Structure formats: structure tokens, C-alpha cells
């Protein structure tokens, strides 16, 4: 499936170095399927020990139905758990825009068809502020032109060229593409000294 653009309301999760343990605590990984991870997203930041609601964007009604997540620096660092972007996707997130992302996290998002785009610190601040003030405004992210349009804000988003191409061509769903090189793979398997 080709992913050329995505649009939707935004949700803002502020903070640098938000690791995947925070996005999904390890105890929710005791599952053999990703289905049902929706409620686990940011669980310990959303609920206190007695299950009471804490203040968190994912609990904030103004963000109901949002699908573009706005974050700061090194989002998704730490554990390689794909459960983290899986939980976000199942909550409704279709794209993530931030200052920077951890590499394994980006790889996981890519293979799930979730584009990640980087913008400068000033730009993310402007986007976040607008989303907080006007949560009903719809953002669009055009992947071929790498352009973000958000009300009166228009700016350039930086995407890894390979990931951008993978989205546009639909090759983010990588297994089929990789299988095409079957004879080369077999040759290499033979060729390696181990």
C-alpha cells in the first residue's frame, strides 16, 4: 500500500528522551499478539497505581480522534520493542512529527507504514503550540513534497529519503521486496565463510 500523504488532528506529547519503556511498560508485552495494545500506550503516565486518571495528552478529550503525534527530541529511544509504535498505531496514530527519533524506533514505524518526519526545534514548538491552542485544526503531511500544512503554518519536514521512498512506493511492507532477491540471497548464503 502506497502512503502518499496523511492528515488528521494532532496530539502533543512534550518532552525529550521519551523512551519506549514509557510508551509501553514492559508488563504489557506479555502477549503473543499486538492486538489489544491500544490501552497500554503511555499507561503509567496516564493512570496512577489505583487506576485513576492522571493528566496526560492521551487522556485529554480535546485530542480525541487525533492521528498525528507531535514530539520533541530522541523520541522512542531505549528498548527495541515494536510494541511501542504498535500501541500508538492502535490508539490511532498514523504519523509522527518531532525534532528527532531513535533509530530502531524509526525502523519499526517504517515497517508498520507510519511515516516519521523531523522538523527544527522552533518549528516543532510552533506546531505544538498551535495544536494545543486549536486542537481541531487538521494537519496534512505530504510525503512526496515533504510539506506540512497546519492552518496558516506551512513548513518543510525532513524525512529520510529511503523511508520517504518506501512510503511512496509501498515498499515499507518489506518482506515481499526482500524476497525478490531470492537467488542473490542464496548465493550470499553460500559465499559467506560461516
Amino acid at each position, binding site marked *: 500500500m502506497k502512503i502518499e500523504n496523511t492528515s488528521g488532528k494532532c496530539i502533543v506529547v512534550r518532552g525529550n528522551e521519551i523512551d519506549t519503556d514509557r510508551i509501553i511498560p514492559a508488563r504489557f508485552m506479555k502477549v503473543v499478539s499486538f492486538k489489544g495494545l491500544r490501552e497500554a500506550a503511555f499507561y503509567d503516565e496516564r493512570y496512577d497505581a489505583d487506576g485513576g486518571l492522571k493528566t496526560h495528552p492521551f487522556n485529554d478529550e480535546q485530542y480525541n480522534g487525533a492521528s498525528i503525534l507531535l514530539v520533541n527530541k530522541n523520541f522512542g529511544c531505549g*528498548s527495541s520493542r*515494536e510494541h511501542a509504535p504498535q500501541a500508538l498505531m492502535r490508539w490511532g496514530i498514523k504519523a509522527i512529527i518531532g525534532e528527532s527519533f531513535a533509530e*530502531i524506533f524509526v525502523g519499526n514505524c517504517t*515497517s508498520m507504514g507510519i511515516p516519521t518526519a523531523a522538523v527544527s526545534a522552533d518549528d516543532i514548538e510552533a506546531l505544538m503550540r498551535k495544536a494545543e491552542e486549536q486542537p481541531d485544526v487538521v494537519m496534512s503531511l505530504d510525503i512526496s513534497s515533504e510539506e506540512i500544512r497546519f492552518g496558516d503554518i506551512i513548513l518543510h519536514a525532513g524525512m529520510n529519503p529511503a523511508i520517504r*521512498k518506501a512510503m511512496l512506493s509501498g515498499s515499507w511492507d518489506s518482506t515481499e521486496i526482500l524476497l525478490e532477491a531470492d537467488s542473490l540471497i542464496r548465493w550470499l*548464503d553460500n559465499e559467506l565463510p560461516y
Partner: protein
Amino acid sequence: MGMNLFNKVWDLHRVKTLDSGLDQLFIGLHLIHEVTSPQAFSMIEERGLSVKYPDRTFATVDHIVPTLDQSRPFQDPLAEKMIQALEDNTKRHGISLFDTENENQGIVHIIGPELGLTQPGMTIACGDSHTSTHGAFGSIALGVGTSQIRDILATQTIAISRPKVRLIEVSGTLAEGVTAKDIILKIICDLGVNGGIGYAYEYCGPVIEALSMEERMTICNMSIEGGARVGYINPDETTFEYLKDRPYVPQAEAFDEALKNWKSIASDSDAEYDDVYRLDVSGLSPMVTWGINPGQGIGIDENLPLLKNLDAEAAEVASKAYSHMGFSEGTAVLGQPIDAAFIGSCTNGRISDLRAAAAVVKGRKVAHTVRAIVVPGSKHVAVQAEKEGLDKIFTEAGFQWRNAGCSMCLAMNPDKLKGRELCASSSNRNFIGRQGSPTGRTMLMSPQMAAAAAVSGKIVDVRNMK
């Protein structure tokens, strides 16, 4: 100009460049465990695919196994279900599994090297970010997510962009009581937790060359905490000596042949790098973390940073850390009372780590305010430790001696912090909630420092315990 190991090994394993511009990279050794693999097996089966090279994949159980009572079925039905899924999947696809009844079972990053599965010049992948550990042998070892596990199972390859390579040269004289853990914590503090994004780290220099294989693994293990997905060290005589006669290492003439290959992939003396960072470790003290990411660390004799001295971004994370940890800026960490101590994990759960911790513990008692556990990284480590009587030293001091597993490194089994407990831990992550309690607190340090804290009831400088 010569080539570095990373680019040599990458080129040997590159199947082709995909239209997207990503490289298709062949994975020579695939390691799997119970937590991140079940969904991958379901995905290939849904597509009617099979495992392409089952002989290149090995499985173990580590993340969720209980470390007290390992009899089956496990008391936790969810854990039991996950183990069964791995048993079924490996059986159905003809993959070797080291389960809790197998003598080779242990944390995936401990058993790979221990069994000689991990060798120089390989590409290694595992659905776990600390796969970087295996780079200590001069391999490219990558942590991957579940969709990439699916791709490796089905095709033995992944789509990935080639990172740049940063040389990290470590020189100077390491003081007594200062360890590989302290070196890597220092590197992460200096370069930042995101400093390595887009890079593979090559560690080199006289200090690195003098390290044992187990110490080298500790360094490479935490590369990912500095944002670098891959960390590696060129193979040398120390590496070859370690590997000789390990079960999965070629023997006799085949060993000599392998040796030739291993030597050929080391970085050339005139190799090029995208970046160089130099660190002199003379004067380095044992390091401890005080915050909520592994880059928030200080030397044991320093005071906690003042927010006003940090840039805006570091100050934001630091103030969140102070509020979670309950520490105050400008104060000392020395003397901070602890509630728990954990010695183990893929960073510091090997035999040399247990020996170092036992040397501190011997003849002392765990403080009555502290609960302390030692969890060997593998069954082989446990057997060796018991042979040397280390288990006795620990239990006589009041530590609990457990079975092999990840345990309180990520607390997916019953080993967890309770409430706001503060834990001196030899593991690798101090993220909020990491050790099983959303309000729990973790301070990372070397195993000897964790042992010293356990017997003192508070954070101390292990160098003063002689």
C-alpha cells in the same frame, strides 16, 4: 585509504541496494527470545512463508522466565503462554531452542558469545536493542523490531540504511576500582544519549585493547544507550583466545581457516572514519547515574548538576529526573540510602562481574534495610559461580542467589521494585518504571559498586572498602 571493519563486513553482507535506497543486508546469525518473536512467526505464517534458514537462528528464553521457581507450567499463565509460543514456533520451524531445561539457557546476549555462536565478521540481529553486545567480537550486531524479525525469518535479510562510523579512542590509565561499565557510562554522558544516532561506534585505543572479552561486551552492550545501534571492537588475540574451543566455534583446521577470515576483517590501520572522539580515562572515578536516562551520570565524588548550568534541553530532562528521583541539585550522591540491589543483566551478569561483586561482599553482610539479589546471566555462569563458591559468598552475606534470566533488569518476571524503592543496579537502563514499579528508582553502576551499596545500605565509593 583503508577500510574500517564496519564497512568491510557490511559490504560482504550487502545483498543489493533496494529502489528505496536502503541496503538489503544478509543476517548471518539470528537470535530470538520469547518476547519479541511470537508476532513475527504469526506474520510469516499468515503470508504462507516459512523460515528460510532455520540453522542460522537460535532461540533462548530469558526475559520473562522466573528466577526462583522454574518448574512448568510457570505460575504466571501469561509467561507460560509466551514460552509455549516459542516452543511451538521453534519446533514447527526446526530452530534450536535453549529452554529452561537446557544447560545452555540464559540471557540471549550472554549465551551467544559464551557458546561461540557470536564470531568476528558476522552480521547478527536480535529483537532486542542490546544486541550491540556481540559487537565486542568484531561483528555488526543490530537490535531490530518485530517486523524486521519477520523479514529475517522469511528472507534472512533486512532493509536498512548504512550508518556512519565514529571512532571512539580510549586512552590513559584506568584506576583501581574503575571498570568497563564506568568507561561506557562516561562515554554516554559525554556524547549524550542521542549522540550516536546514525552512527556505529568503533571502540579502540590502548585501554580498550587491554580489556578482557567480558569487559568489552559491557562496553559494546551499552552503545545503544548512547543512541548508537551498533558498537564494535576489532578482533585481536584476546578475541581469538576467548573463542577457541567454544562449542559452536570451528575446530582444528577449520579454526585456522576462520582465524584468517577474522583477521582480514579488522579495520585497516589507515581506515577512514566519519568522526573521531577521544577520551582519556586517567582520573575517571566509578560512575553512577542519578536520573532517568543512562546519560545522566556523574563520578561518585561529584555533586549533582545545577539546573542553571545545563542547557535548556538538558535542564528539562534533569528537572523531570530530579522530581522522579527525589534528589536535589547540587547535592552529593554519596551516602544516599538504597532499598534494593540488583546484580545481573546482559551488561554485567557474566562470571567476571560476579567474581568482582563477590570480592566486595566477602565477609560482609547486606544491610538490613536492603533486599539484594544476584542473577547470573546464564546457566553456564551459574554453574561456574557455584563451582567457585561465589553463590555461598552471596547467600551468606544475605543476597538471594537466583536462576539465570533478565530478572529485575526489566521486570517482566516476578522480580520487581516495589513503590518508590531505590535500587543500585548493575543493569543498563534507569528509565522511569523500568524495574517494574512506575514510581521505582534506579541508579546504574558497576557490579562492584552495586555490591558495595548493598552491604553499606547506601551509595558508597567501592574504592574505600578495601
